[in-house]
């Protein structure tokens, strides 16, 4: 099942983590004209290709 939409904090955290990876040279997962890591991350996020999972609330422990 598709994970529930991320809220703004989760989205910000994901974009931050991904932008850092990209800036360190991680392979970009989509075709893009962007050069800024954060913008690349945003496009990847919108395309839904980012391999992140957010653990929420009670199933964290």
């Amino acid at each position, binding site marked *: *099942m598709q*994970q*529930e939409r991320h*809220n*703004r*904090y*989760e989205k*910000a*955290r*994901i974009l*931050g*983590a991904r932008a850092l990876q990209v800036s360190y040279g991680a392979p970009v997962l989509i075709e893009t004209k962007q050069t800024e890591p954060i913008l690349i991350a945003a496009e990847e996020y919108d395309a839904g290709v*980012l*391999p*992140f*999972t*957010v*653990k*929420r*609330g009670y*199933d*964290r422990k």
Partner: protein
Amino acid sequence: MTNVHYDVDDDTIAVVEDTNLPRRLKDEVYETLEDRGDATVEDADELSKAVEARYMDTRVDPLDPVGTVSAQSIGEPGTQLTMNTFHYAGVAEIDVTQGLPRLIELVDARKTPDTPMMTVYLEDEYATEREKAHEVVWNLEATKILALGDVSTNVADMRVQISLNKDTLEERMITAEEVAEIIEDNLGVSTVQQGTEIQFGPEEPSYRDLLQLVEELRDITFKGIEEVSRVVIRREELDEGEQFVLYTEGSAFGDALEIEGVDASRTTCNNLHEIHRNLGIEAARETIIEETHNTLAEQGLDDVNVRHLMLVADMMTNRGEIESIGRHGISGSKQSVLARAAFEVTVNHLLNAAIHGEIDDLDGVTENVIVGKPIKLGTGDVDLRMGSTDSGGSQAD
């Protein structure tokens, strides 16, 4: 655990149960569908989707720092509040503390407000007839001897002489005999009463005792409630029609409710503790919201969302009694040593914690700022894992 008691078909149930709504909202959706009778599965789907979208929109996001947002939302308009204790605004000519001092008084949960007051609503004919309303006034307002007549001291005979005013006695519904009796009970002297004249003096002739008696006499409350120094009567247009409403300076909420003619279902006062004592914690919560809101509204700052005020009131009443916000209340009872130390009297807290070997779990915001870790709010508390296959347990809710 899905047991639906409503008369709807299985497909509809499947559609509604599939949404992310809480139980009570789902039940309400069923109820609405049931009432419609002719609703199809598509209608049910559309309805529950619409309800779900609306519900998700109104929810606070997980990880939202609601307390911080409330603090800012009340704090900012707070800077525009009057810092002076200006009075005489609002209703009648009653003196009421307003602006910042009143707000501080409320969140500090002071034992007695600076200017205690009651708004007394009346019942039946007491509310419509001026005469009757005045009866209640006399039962509320503290009547001292000077309001009833003249007091003079006869130094030659060592006697205190009171000549009561007959009309005033009648108006305030008290007799000269009653006055004499109250004096005897309070001062422990024997009085001589003849008509509207009352005389008494000290047992042993003594100038000092005589003056002392006069002094004490002035403080006796002959009728009404000791704490209520003044009552203003006003005719007001209410939902129930035109009625007399009383505003008092000083409050004794419990006593006031017992008075005949007082409407014990609407009468209020501005002292949180009196409300709590007489009406319970829920009424106190309601009063905190109402009073803080009115204080802001009085200065044109009522665009502060009530939810912030409700949060404050909920925190203050969470333990079943009124707690102040600050060192002696909510902030003082924090779990973490570091959080308490950061607030006030740092060394004492650290010393005590060291002596007792306290452990800080670093759960709160302050502690984590002190040790330099991300705080557990907003982006700081998102638990991110690599990999899109979620291990163990699906995303249930």
